[in-house]
């Protein structure tokens, strides 16, 4: 935000009378001003119920991935008995049984780990690619920027799921957890790159970077000390939401038959197997769907709340 925009905002608020004290120049805000963006953001985050819902859901999901046996109520996902095939949920077996007669709660719970690993791994690759390409193109500009930006356009033009399908079917990555994560990252890094690039370009021309340069700071130092910290807030928001999106994408790819394969335990596989039994045993699609949705929701809610907290202009 430029000074003029800041001044306009202030003016609007004052004139509209909507100032609550924080933005108004007519109020002593010295104390509040000293608070950094982050503690201010935390203050807002704390009061956002969406954030807490998301955080609790996310924590449950995390624990589920780390210690699934606690949530599985003692059942082993691979201890199956065909005589229990497709049994409906009961007080004893909350999620019922699947076609092979395996305890479904245990299976759904054990599916969290692969989802989490793929989500985190893919987002890590995306961040590394996005930060690297984004920072380099934004900072150095010129021919390198043009070339890499066109390359980004090319990847951007291929629909996300479509690209991942082709990569996974081509088979040079294999079909494991890492393969799915990398396939998702290959066609998912462009937004992160654009985010970082635009931040870098915006900050690069700011006065304080000019001041740092005048004092003889090197390019690398300027990039790391002055420019990248500014990209942290938007990247953090993006990362949180993207983990949710990636988890959903993994389930989709697996459902389509190009992601994880048996005997891996995955929500996508469970939904895929349950699909043909939708008429007789809807719970086989229902339970993994619910848990998948709640997991995705956890990350999207946290990301939304973070954005509201970190971007004062978006606040209601």
């Amino acid at each position, binding site marked *: 935000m430029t000074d003029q925009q800041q001044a306009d905002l202030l003016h609007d608020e004052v004139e509209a009378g909507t100032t609550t004290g924080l933005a108004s120049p007519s109020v002593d805000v010295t104390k509040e001003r000293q608070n950094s963006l982050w503690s201010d953001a935390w203050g807002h985050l704390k009061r956002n119920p969406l954030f807490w819902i998301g955080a609790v859901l996310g924590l449950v999901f995390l624990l589920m991935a780390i210690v699934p046996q606690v949530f599985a109520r003692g059942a082993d996902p691979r201890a199956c008995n065909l005589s229990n095939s497709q049994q409906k949920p009961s007080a004893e077996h909350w999620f019922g049984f699947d076609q092979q007669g395996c305890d479904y709660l245990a299976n759904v719970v054990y599916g969290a780990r692969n989802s989490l690993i793929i989500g985190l791994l893919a987002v890590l690759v995306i961040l590394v690619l996005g930060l690297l390409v984004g920072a380099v193109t934004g900072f150095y500009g010129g021919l390198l920027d043009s070339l890499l930006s066109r390359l980004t356009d090319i990847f951007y033009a*291929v629909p996300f799921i479509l690209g991942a399908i082709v990569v996974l079917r081509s088979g040079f990555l294999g079909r494991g957890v890492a393969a799915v994560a990398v396939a998702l990252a290959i066609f998912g890094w462009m937004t992160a790159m654009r985010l970082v690039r635009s931040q870098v370009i915006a900050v690069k021309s700011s006065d304080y970077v000019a001041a740092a340069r005048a004092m003889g700071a090197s390019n690398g130092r300027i990039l790391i000390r002055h420019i990248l910290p500014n990209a942290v807030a938007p990247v953090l928001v993006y990362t949180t939401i993207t983990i949710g999106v990636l988890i959903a994408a993994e389930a989709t790819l697996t459902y389509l038959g190009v992601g994880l394969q048996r005997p891996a335990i995955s929500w996508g596989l469970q939904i895929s197997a349950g699909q043909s039994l939708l008429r007789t045993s809807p719970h086989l699609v229902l339970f993994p769907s619910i848990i998948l949705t709640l997991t995705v*929701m956890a990350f999207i809610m946290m990301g939304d709340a973070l954005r509201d907290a970190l971007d004062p202009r978006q606040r209601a």
Partner: protein
Amino acid sequence: MGRYVARRLLLTIPVLLGASFLIFAMVYALPGDPIRALGGDRPLSPAVVAQLREEFNLNDPLVVQYVKYLGDLIQGDLGTDFRGREVLDTISQRLPVTIKLTVVAILIETVIGIVAGVLAGIRRNGFLDNLVLVSSTIVVSVPILVLAFVGQYVLGLQFGWFPVSGINEGWYSYLLPGLVLAAGSLAYVARLTRTSVAENMRADYVRTARAKGLPRRTVILRHTLRNSLIPVVTFIGADIGTLMGGAIVTESVFNLPGVGRAIFDSVRAQEGAVVVGIVTLLVFFFVFFNLVVDVLYAVLDPRIRYD
């Protein structure tokens, strides 16, 4: 403007080429020999295999294969699949299904999304606003896969309101898949409209419009909505290309014979020509609608001038 469009068109050429080569390279790096697979249980004679490999240029280096493919493409020949069927025929048969699905989805997201967003944005923090906010968060979070099954099970099987699969009931068959496909964008459009309208409601020029004594209707329709819809319209424009390329899951679950389903089937059958042809087409649509959006932006907002 004309020069800008021409320049943008030129810039799309490398993107189209790059994207199609990317797909081409990955598809033809597929393991296994599709020709042998064609024979199934009865192995083909080596002579036949060699002949087929020659016919499909499978012996050339990748780049040569691609250049040959491009040469044919320019002449309108997208090649044939291994069963001798013209890829162009497959596309022209499948594309209308995907287009219909996309049209239904775009209509749904535009109408419902904008109406919900406007109602929410006008009375910020009101009941409708909170309803839109909460429901859009939920809808955005539901993976399209889950949504498809929920829609199919609840609205299709339980209530019997919609056909569960296929396209035998005309446009009506597309309603439920369209809704599923549109849901995520719908929520986004509602939110974007809400933010945009709420922001514009506080704009100085809306205050001016009220100070001019314009009727409330005029203030909202002419001075708030027109400005608020600029980002929304551009999002929807770009979304056409995205939805066309993102219909794979929807078409799979609802068993719609569109291009998404065709890609999916072809990837499984290792029908490279079909995959490359359709993906290139979808990339073209994507790039095309993004270009349209850029031009549209200049038409809608006089402050933007491309020279």
